């Protein structure tokens, strides 16, 4: 019943009527016990002879063993990519390249369920997201770029676009398959051949994709996949016969790569960290803004470089927004990534779990107030409940550094100028979000955000036609759209 005393008014968002487990079936997928390197169109044993385990972060069970590529393996991969470039791929017309890419896109769609299940098993992300976002978007990137393959002359009129040659690509663990699509699709469409290293905690979908390339009849050596840790990546970066390095990952590693390729002819695109501001003006549609904040920070457990991890709320609506945010968080389901109802899955690795926990500890030590809704976390596996921090200063560590987890740092502001200054006061500049019902305010704010991607009244929306990339220490170069094609081409 309604409570008369105003202070006691709360919603009881729990209910006897719960959601029964609705697990996605995993019986249809086939995983090998051991995965070798994919070089020259074949799976070959690593020269190093070494393998490492890849585990399911939700259960800590070993899924498979993955080969560790050393410098000799990488050299072999680059040689095979060069051979494929010289003898096959550079001789094909754009139209013929496009056919292969279309075929890859269609095969991904056909096997979407298999890929999404493996993505969720290996990376801890929810099946809802891998099924509805990661895999369909990955296919969309191949479709989009397939269309460009024979139209490059039209995309860049009178500029004679030419492929670069062999490109080295290093992808992160947060969107394994999607980031691979972002890298491989434009590289192939523009006529390059590829040596790619997926992140060490999430190699499986890359290797399944290698099997798919075989089925698609992609000529041997056009895409080579070498698995391993950071040193494997450094062998790609430092290989003299690589013409370009495309990297998505942390700003720290990005800086190391840029130093390593300084003074060489290698081109580069860097898609690095972020600490995006999400700004709620007092005239915003508040319930929808709250939904956007939830999507902005808790999407993929906050393992998103463009996550809206700094929330700025105009002071007049601060209490209402906080109340709505906390109510909404109570309805989030945290747990088994394979359950179709799970909103927040497992943290990708033990290492990342420790990082996030350290930041949470630090936030509390620095005097910020923490809020976490009640949730029953599984005993095994790596978990962090959705977390808010209020009473945060612009100089608090949790407001400055990228946490890459489901942790939101909240501040208030009074004037527009104040929030613009605070939002831009960061070494990063990847993305930002603005919430207001007033068009002029939206245009003013979005045009003043120093960030590569700015969303208005929505957040975390992606499309292959839209270029993505950062300002400042969030990187350089764009992926997606025509701008993304340019990053894989040279011009007369």
């Amino acid at each position, binding site marked *: 019943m*309604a409570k008369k005393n105003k202070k006691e008014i709360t919603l009881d968002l729990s*209910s006897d009527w719960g*959601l*029964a487990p609705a697990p996605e079936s995993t019986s249809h997928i086939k995983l090998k016990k051991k995965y070798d390197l994919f070089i020259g169109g074949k799976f070959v044993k690593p020269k190093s002879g070494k393998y490492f385990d890849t585990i399911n972060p939700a259960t800590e069970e070993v899924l498979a063993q993955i080969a560790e590529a050393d410098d000799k393996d990488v050299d072999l991969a680059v040689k095979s990519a060069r051979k494929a470039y010289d003898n096959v791929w550079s001789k094909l017309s754009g139209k013929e390249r496009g056919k292969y890419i279309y075929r890859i896109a269609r095969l991904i769609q056909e096997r979407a369920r298999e890929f999404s299940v493996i993505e969720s098993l290996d990376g801890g992300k929810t099946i809802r997201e891998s099924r509805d976002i990661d895999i369909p978007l990955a296919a969309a990137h191949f479709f989009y770029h397939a269309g460009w393959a024979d139209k490059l002359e039209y995309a860049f009129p009178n500029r004679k676009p030419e492929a670069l040659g062999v490109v080295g690509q290093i992808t992160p663990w947060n969107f394994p398959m999607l980031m691979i699509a972002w890298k491989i699709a434009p590289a192939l469409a523009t006529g390059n051949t590829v040596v790619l290293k997926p992140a060490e905690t999430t190699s499986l979908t890359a290797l399944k994709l290698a099997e798919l390339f075989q089925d698609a009849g992609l000529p041997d050596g056009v895409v080579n996949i070498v698995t391993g840790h950071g040193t494997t990546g450094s062998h790609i970066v430092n290989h003299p016969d690589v013409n370009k390095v495309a990297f998505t990952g942390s700003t720290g590693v990005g800086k190391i790569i840029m130093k390593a390729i300084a003074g060489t002819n290698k081109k580069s695109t860097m898609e690095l960290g972020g600490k995006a501001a999400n700004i709620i003006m007092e005239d915003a*549609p508040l319930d929808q803004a709250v939904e956007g904040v939830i*999507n902005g920070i808790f999407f993929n457990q906050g393992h998103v470089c463009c996550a809206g991890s700094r929330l700025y709320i105009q002071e007049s609506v601060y209490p209402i927004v906080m109340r709505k945010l906390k109510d909404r968080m109570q309805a989030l389901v945290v747990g088994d990534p394979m359950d179709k109802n799970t909103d927040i899955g497992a943290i990708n690795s033990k290492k990342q779990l420790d990082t996030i926990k350290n930041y949470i500890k630090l936030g509390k030590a620095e005097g910020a107030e923490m809020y976490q809704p009640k949730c029953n976390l599984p005993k095994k596996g790596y978990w962090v409940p959705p977390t808010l921090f209020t009473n945060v200063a612009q100089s608090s560590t949790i407001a400055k550094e990228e946490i890459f987890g489901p942790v939101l740092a909240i501040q208030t502001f009074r004037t527009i100028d104040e929030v613009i200054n605070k939002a831009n006061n960061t070494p990063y500049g990847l993305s930002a979000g603005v919430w207001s019902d007033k068009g002029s305010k939206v245009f003013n704010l979005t045009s003043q955000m120093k960030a590569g991607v700015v969303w208005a009244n929505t957040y975390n929306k992606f499309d292959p036609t839209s270029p993505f990339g950062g300002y400042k220490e969030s990187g350089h170069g764009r992926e997606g759209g025509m701008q993304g094609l340019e990053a894989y081409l040279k011009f007369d």
Partner: protein
Amino acid sequence: MAKQDYSLSPKIDQVGILDRVARITARSIKNESKMQGLMMALNMIDLTTLEGADTDEKVKQLCYKAVHLHDSIPNLPTTAAVCVYPNFVKTAVKALKGSNVKVASVATAFPSGHSSREIKLMDTKIAVDNGAHEVDMVISRGKFHSGEYNFVHDEIAAIKEACGKARLKVILETGELGTFDKVRRASDIAMDAGADFIKTSTGKIKPAATLPVTLVMLEAIKDHYYNTGRMVGMKPAGGISNSKLALQYLIMVKETLGGQWLTNEWFRFGASSLANDVLMQIAKQNSGNYQSKDYFSID
């Protein structure tokens, strides 16, 4: 106290509403949750007949169905209410005597609402005097669109007074309002004027109830509750004819307002054909097979 300026009601972003609805419809409701949800849905139905062709006999049959949904399945709940035109209230009250099923009557020149205040009040009073437990009124959409919010507010307040102990459901006819902003505004007016329930539609206009419109109204109810401490019920009506959709509505209520609202005191479905689809699903959950439609009576 100064009158509220309803043009300042919170604004609604359509893209955001649709995004949230997409999250809700992606929920997977299985096994015991499904069974529990289906039982709950049955118990929340206002079994409705609002046709020119209605007869005393048809209303009586509907009342029997409300109490005896499908006797071959044991332990089924009754529906929440039957909903009829005012001239059938007496018949319904008599037929439902001794049961927990309420009698709801539409009133106020349903469905168009084009009539004078006097006639609307009289319409309401006759329904209540004849024993209706609940009154489903329509707002004056013309006045609402022309910005006469105080008129709409005062009319609802007057009808509420005429209802006495009967609970008042206020039909916004969202299919005629045009935007989510206006749905929110009309919801705020109705709740401030004393509505016990806000209801989407008469069922005579398309679109009738939709998930997005219902979400906008549930969020208005939530804000009203936080502002005043008063719970207001929600009734989507029209166009909800299958179990899956009904369960999605219930998930929306659960995640927006919580368990307090998941009873027929605070949530109703206005529907004529939903009950049979829910019954078919319950029979399927029990037996493992779908049965022919012919095993379920049409009333």
